[in-house]
């Protein structure tokens, strides 16, 4: 029988806090370093130790990054989910299980590999047995699939960052797992790996770290944050890299403040922006909820501010360690009253870096809050990265008047006067001695003086609308992958990028129709998104939430003649999107509308 090569999914069921994450990352890194297209998803609990965790490794020759439709190889270590995990498996699944778990193997239709993982680990180091038992299953997998031992040991070395003792112990555990498999297990494994050409310069990085680095190359001057999953590693990434990248004459060119709550974090960002600096915060939905009042102040007083929202499942505390695109509408129209905000939506780790620096330019150019919208899937999982491109434009600090000459050249200056006709006024900075102003969240006229006059308020709100509308085509344009037929078009955004190709392939295979896609990368919507809708007969707006939030935004903004052909597929269960699940929902809608 021919083996299935580089095209299967491994599911590893463990408990958190047992060191399994290191073992799983070693497995992922080894496959990656063998040149095999691979992705890893960590499904972890909101807990420090002892609750179920699954790690899904997808190998795909086509480069599909979503978790597959089914599990081909199951590793069972955690007694707590044992029975449920085992029952869910399709016949013929490879099951590598820890015989020391004191759990039954009650399936005879699976390919069973019993391994005394804990016993093997205990023989090596009784104290650390629980931890290194995880590396034993990595060794077993390596042997079953035919992974290169040298690459595996290099990954172990990478994971433990040169700590000789840990590297030696874990390498030995992997070897013992391999040996046990070779000597004691005789069943033939239907799956195998084969090394491919390794992409030069590729590496793994989490979306959060990519945003962190992008922010530093964007010249972040003040970071304030309050810890919250899944955004903490974004702030911590900035904190980790700042000393190396932003020390000048032995001193810091940045300030980091861990705030007392998200309200204060937002206040600090706005304080820094008011003073003339690039301030930012990183949070998740619950934090954005708390920041609403400040978001309105930043919008209305026209103070630049940057907020990264790494979306987790809401509402309320929700599923804190699961993923969703549920915050989009809240970001776009955050705070009370009429508001509209700029939102950057990266779909890849490369874009996480790029938007990390670009977002400051937008916030300062438009003197307004700018949001980065990521999610747990993109932010906290490791993704293959092709590299980061150095910013190709100088920083845009916007319309800041720095000298008296500049001030004198502006005719009829007023802090909120639209001198250039683009809705963007000029501003002066505290301490500069130039045209002082008392910023306020109350109604104000073009000079910044308090006013409740109807025409003053109306004109101010109309200008703010014009200002943000003017940003549409200056923000990242959508990524279009269009077919000649221009029949069915899918509009999507963010981390769905990693599943769309597989969805597209399923749709084309099963409907025989060509499908174009359009990935939105910013709000307010670029005019090319509307043009894409115009060009296609049937448009599906695909998103990972219940309420079809992008669909709602488009329906509100687009002309009536386009509305009939726009259809929503919105689904969220907390899991990273699986292609088949979304493809089937799309096919249901296409059938329903006769497309």
């Amino acid at each position: 029988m021919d083996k299935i090569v580089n095209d299967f999914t491994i599911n590893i069921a463990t408990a958190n806090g047992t060191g399994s994450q290191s073992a799983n990352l070693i497995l992922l890194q080894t496959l990656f370093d063998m040149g095999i297209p691979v992705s890893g998803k960590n499904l972890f609990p909101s807990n420090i130790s002892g609750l179920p965790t699954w790690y899904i490794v997808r190998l795909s020759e086509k480069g599909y990054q979503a978790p597959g439709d089914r599990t081909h190889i199951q590793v069972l270590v955690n007694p707590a989910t044992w029975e449920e995990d085992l029952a869910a498996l399709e016949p013929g699944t490879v099951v590598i299980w820890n015989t020391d778990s004191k759990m039954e193997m009650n399936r005879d239709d699976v390919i069973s590999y019993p391994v005394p993982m804990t016993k093997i680990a205990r023989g090596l180091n009784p104290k650390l047995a629980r931890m290194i038992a995880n590396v034993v299953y990595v060794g077993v997998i390596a042997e079953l699939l035919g992974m290169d031992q040298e690459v595996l040991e290099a990954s172990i070395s990478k994971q433990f960052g040169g700590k000789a003792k840990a590297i030696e112990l874990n390498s030995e555990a992997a070897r013992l797992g391999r040996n046990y498999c070779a000597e004691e297990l005789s069943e033939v494994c239907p799956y195998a790996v084969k090394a491919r050409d390794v992409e030069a310069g590729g590496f793994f990085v989490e979306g959060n770290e990519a945003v962190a680095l992008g922010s530093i190359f964007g010249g972040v001057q003040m970071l304030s944050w309050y810890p919250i999953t899944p955004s903490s590693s974004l702030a911590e990434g900035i904190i980790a890299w700042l000393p190396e990248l932003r020390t000048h004459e032995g001193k810091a060119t940045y300030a980091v403040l861990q705030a007392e709550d998200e309200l204060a974090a937002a206040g600090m960002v706005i304080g820094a922006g008011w003073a003339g600096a690039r301030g930012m915060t990183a949070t998740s939905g619950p934090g954005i909820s708390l920041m609403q009042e400040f978001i309105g102040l930043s919008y209305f007083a026209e103070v630049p501010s940057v907020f990264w929202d790494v979306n987790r499942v809401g509402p309320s505390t929700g599923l804190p360690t699961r993923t969703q695109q549920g915050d989009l509408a809240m970001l776009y129209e955050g705070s009370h009253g009429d508001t509209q905000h700029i939102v950057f939506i990266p779909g890849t780790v490369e874009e996480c870096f790029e938007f990390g620096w670009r977002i400051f330019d937008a916030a300062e150019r438009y003197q307004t809050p700018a949001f980065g919208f990521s999610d747990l899937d993109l932010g906290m999982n490791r993704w293959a990265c092709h590299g980061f491109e150095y910013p190709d434009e100088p920083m845009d600090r916007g319309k800041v008047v720095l000298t008296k000459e500049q001030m004198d050249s502006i005719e009829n200056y007023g802090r909120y006067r639209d001198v250039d006709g683009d809705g963007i006024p000029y501003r002066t900075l505290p301490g500069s001695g130039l045209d002082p102003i008392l910023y306020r969240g109350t109604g104000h006229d073009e000079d910044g003086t308090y006013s409740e006059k109807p025409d003053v308020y109306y004109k101010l709100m109309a200008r703010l609308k014009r200002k943000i509308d003017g940003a549409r085509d200056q923000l990242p344009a959508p990524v279009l992958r269009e077919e000649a037929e221009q029949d069915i078009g899918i509009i999507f955004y963010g981390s769905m990028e990693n599943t769309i190709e597989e969805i597209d392939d399923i749709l084309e295979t099963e409907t025989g129709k060509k499908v174009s896609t359009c990935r939105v990368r910013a709000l307010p919507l670029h005019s090319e998104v509307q043009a894409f809708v115009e060009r296609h007969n049937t448009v599906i707006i695909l998103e990972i939430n219940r309420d079809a939030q992008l669909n709602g935004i488009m329906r509100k903004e687009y002309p009536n003649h386009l509305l009939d052909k726009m259809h929503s597929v919105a689904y969220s269960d907390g899991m990273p999107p699986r292609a088949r699940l979304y493809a089937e929902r799309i096919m249901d809608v296409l059938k329903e509308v006769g497309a």
Partner: protein
Amino acid sequence: MSDKPARAIKLNVINEPKDSYTGGKSSLCPGCGHDQISSVIVNSAWENGIKPHRIAKMSGIGCSSKTPAYYLGQSHGFNTVHGRMPSVTTGANVVNADLTYLGVSGDGDSASIGIGQLIHAIRRNVNMVYIIENNGVYGLTKGQYSATADVGSKKKKGTVNETQPIDLCAMAINLGCSFVARSFSGSKKQLTAIIKAAMSHKGFALIDVISPCVTFNNNDESLRSYGYVKDNSAELHSVGYIPHFSPLEQVEVPAGSYRDITLHDGSTMRLETISEDHNISDAVAALTALHKADAERKHVMGLLYFDGDKPSLDADLNLHDTPIVEMGEEILRPSAAQLDDVISALRG
């Protein structure tokens, strides 16, 4: 044509007239304590010779927080949101530590909605002056009790307050605030000396100023009326201030016992003993003074607590001497070579 020579305009140490420190016309009720505080702020900044454009005036929401429009018209300011002025000031302070941050707040801002932010600004020792214009009631919403209203006090309308108040000075002392004072909007001399000293202090300076609300809480049954406070003040000492540009030896030395405290900019705060000596370095003595006055239904006045050695937030952050806000792209954006190094590190 008149032959009269123009009257010489009085200038301060940096040759600025007082007009450079005034603001717009107040829209508060005539007689409001807050207006007296505004005029003290104008005098203090002028007499201290601070360049008006190097002051940042910060506030939250409420009657008190409207006042930055009425003083220091040449300073930038930020009338932020209710109770959140401390965080905005903190964010501005760390990117531009060279400005003098002057925060004005009320008892609604500071003792209720924003008490958390106040506490954390004290905890960080943000280098700022924080004035609480404390009248025990919410004015803009028409006279509800605030969290500083004294037990047994009765405002113009409504019932006697029975809820325990929050004493912001006691709270600040317990938090280790580096400068804690209480004063009265009607004690112009004392308040001026305290505000000047606070401006010369590096660290968080909290000044709780009883500032009667003439519309809702100035009746005889109120413990925060002009009449009550005047008759029931317990002064810890008399406070004097000698700016760094006036040589100490030219200042008349008081007859009784006194203590001089050197502030961060070289100015001197002179505390003259009135009856018994108050040790401003002793937090327990400060709390005792507060509790004693409280038991006697009196308001203690003066500098309660002082710690000139505590490093302020900006000193804690190892910041470059050039304010971060003044740095250009060449410093703020790492080089392409540095990005290559980052990527090499990520490759492992």
